[in-house]
């Protein structure tokens, strides 16, 4: 199956799609950063606490 020729619509909306893509990538990076911060800030329970 061959690649279809790019539709004019895709060229016209390239800027918009690129912008959305970058926003989504930044959002994922932020979620990752927040997760790392939340996990490292939460104190780990000791072995004794876990066994109780």
């Amino acid at each position: 199956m061959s690649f279809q020729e790019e539709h004019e619509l895709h060229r016209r909306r390239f800027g918009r799609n690129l912008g959305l893509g970058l926003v989504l990538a930044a959002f994922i990076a932020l979620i990752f950063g927040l997760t790392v911060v939340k996990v490292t800030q939460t104190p780990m329970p000791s072995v004794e606490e876990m066994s109780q």
Partner: protein
Amino acid sequence: MTDATINTDAQAPEAQFGDYVALLKPRVMVLVVFTAIIGLFAAPVSLHPVEAFAAILFIALGGGASGALNMWWDADIDAVMKRTSKRPIPSGRVTPQEALAFGLGLSGISVVMLGLATNWAAAGLLAFTIFFYVVIYTMWLKRWTPQNIVIGGAAGAFPPMIGWAAATGSVSVESVLMFALIFMWTPPHFWALALFMRSDYDDAGVPMLTVTHGRRATRVHILVYTLLLAALSLGLAATSIGGPVYLAAALVLNALFVRDAIRIWRRDEDASEADNFKVEKAFFKLSLLYLFLLFGAIGADTALGLGGLW
């Protein structure tokens, strides 16, 4: 979708990425971001920088979402007013349905993400702010009462309180005072705008004070609210977030602001029209500087460790 519909779409103005950014009212967002940063920074509890960044981002996003919903509801007014006629919806680049979906989607994301990033007190305040701006101000008060600006101004006053709540998880006297400062600042700021953008609000039928009670009454209201604002902002210097930098800024800025309000009060329409509303426009510009410098002074006192010295 058939090729025929694609071709039909191609003839309508195409929404670009910038049009969706414009729906978020980025210029208003500057005030939201700045005051929220000061609220968060002045709070006695500090957040991790990543959490603080996320908090400010989602507060800004929530403010932007309410701006999009405001543009969805007010598209008919925006089309009439010269200042707003080129916005994405009246210009046809974004459909009202798209703006509604965009605003509702971002509202949900911003509230949930703020809750997850910081705490649910801040998220609740953000949700209430969006509700207040969209339902109470935009849908109800704006077209019904000339006090629309006075009560609706509360929506723009919440960001420092949300920033404070993001750090502390609660509401306190200091955050309420920062709220009150913006709340009292909003009416004279917008009434000055209404004085020199007269035809816009008249044409749109928005019951601004200038339309319902006349321009003389508006000038009196600007002076009264400016005097009340001056008393409040000077009083804030004596609280735990005020310090010497804030006191100095408040003394100078309030002297200038009251002086210009008196000038507006003393002028009549002939004098204003003769110099194309020079004093009113200067007052409007000064009002922007007033708020930025006062909040900047709160930030400066906090950074220098001078807040709450008396």
